[in-house]
């Protein structure tokens, strides 16, 4: 009985320490750009989204997609952090539907990434997973960039 009591107390202390690690609020953001990276480290153009890769990376891929799509366990092998996103999307076959390119330059309708964010892909859930989904203006900018040739 004594061992059970001590074990429970030890576990409660451990759990309590985890809650303390969590703290009460988010970071202050001091010295960081809008994506939480040190100012000057990366290209964060700010302002509204534009139909170019740098802007889409900063407004969509980095802050939203790379929460899951980054690192060694990125779903479907798709890494959308700033150093990998272009090379892993433009002209690259989708892992879920290999007959489609993730981004087919000049052809937004047949770009699997557009189908996933618009919610009419033939396989799996709409992205970003669990929402909120991208607004019409953001999707329009991404479509325009692809239609213009999906330049880096």
């Amino acid at each position, binding site marked *: 009985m004594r061992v*059970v*009591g001590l*074990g*429970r107390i030890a*576990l*409660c202390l*451990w*759990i309590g320490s*985890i*809650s303390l*690690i*969590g*703290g*009460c*609020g*988010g*970071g*202050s*953001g*001091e*010295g*960081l*750009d*809008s*994506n*939480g*990276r040190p100012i000057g480290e990366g290209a964060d153009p700010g302002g509204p989204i534009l139909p170019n890769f740098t802007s889409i990376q900063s407004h969509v891929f980095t*802050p*939203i997609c790379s*929460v*899951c799509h*980054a*690192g*060694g*366990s*990125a*779903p*479907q*092998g*798709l*890494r959308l*952090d*700033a*150093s*990998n996103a272009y090379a892993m999307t433009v002209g*690259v*076959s989708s*892992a879920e539907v290999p007959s489609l390119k993730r981004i087919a330059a000049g052809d937004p309708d047949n770009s699997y990434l557009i189908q996933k964010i618009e919610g009419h*892909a*033939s*396989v*799996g*859930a*709409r992205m970003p*997973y*669990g*929402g*909120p*989904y991208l*607004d019409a203006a953001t999707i329009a900018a991404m479509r325009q960039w692809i239609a213009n040739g999906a330049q880096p």
Partner: protein
Amino acid sequence: MKALLRFLAGTTVGALISLAAHAEPYLAVRTGLKCVACHVNPDGGGLRNAVGQSFVQNVIAANPAPAPLNAWNGSVASWLRIGGDLRTDSTETKVDGQATTRVSGNQQTRLYADLQLLENHLGAYIDEQVAPGKSLRQEAYARLQTSDGGWYAKAGQFYLPFGWRLQDNTAFVRQLSGISMTVPDKGLLVGMEKPEWSAQLAYSDGPGNKGAVRGHQLTGQLIWLQPWGRLGAAMAHVQSTAGNRQSWGAFAGTTTGPVAWLAELDLVADDGYPEGQRRQMASLLEANWLVVKGHNVKLTSEWLNPDTRVSNDDKVRYSLLYEYTPIGFLQLRAGYRWFKGIPQNAFDNRRLGFVELHAFF
């Protein structure tokens, strides 16, 4: 109000034509049972066994199911068990400076089947997501086990074992580890189930090693069960041409009166970033209060450090959920989540409210 009534009417009809089985690890902690006590899959989640079916109808639900539903135990033949899982929800998201968005619809419909090819020794398991979109295979594996279930092996496509197998796949710990019930992997898993210990070790392709990216993943976890709760440790090593990853996790669960507690702390180190290796941490603290039979209140506190070398970039998420299980085939959930992040990113400070209908058989 009209919109809510329309949603409930629509989802109820949907539930009747597409019947859930889904794991919530707090139930195992609350009862002191292992995952394998209620699930066909020894790692937990998915199709329930006969004990699990009885448990959900007689222990979790507020009321007994009406006849003939109460006779359902998941078995359609001595060699075949089936089950299903439907989740449909309506979510409203508020981001400062932007219009409020509202999305409703089917989150997922899954069907499960377990075939006993050689009773208590050799089986085949399938978890098929049939909606939304085209059918998508989540799990499909052959399972070999000793007659007492003390040792088993799975070969095929399955979910990897790492930390608490939460229903909420968007929890920070699940997003950071990249191991959840949305990301199956192909490989071989060996498991052990002893009275005080559970262990799994898997060798797989790695969910991130797809297309031109090549490599493999080694994932393992060990859980120690005691009368006062349980403690677990997990690790994953990803070998990848796009950059290696090391993950470590520690997790625990206990009860204090009517409250079941879950906690997890994960650390991930990723190569393949311009600055070299990036380390991230995430934690989860979850309290589940059994108000009265069939009624559960869930409170969670989560923390994410996206880069341990960068200061002031932490994110937190708080959730308050109410779960009502009127009968053993139906659950209604409603919740609110607060996100807090750096002030210059409005999206990281969003609020989200949702109602969900979860039907299962």
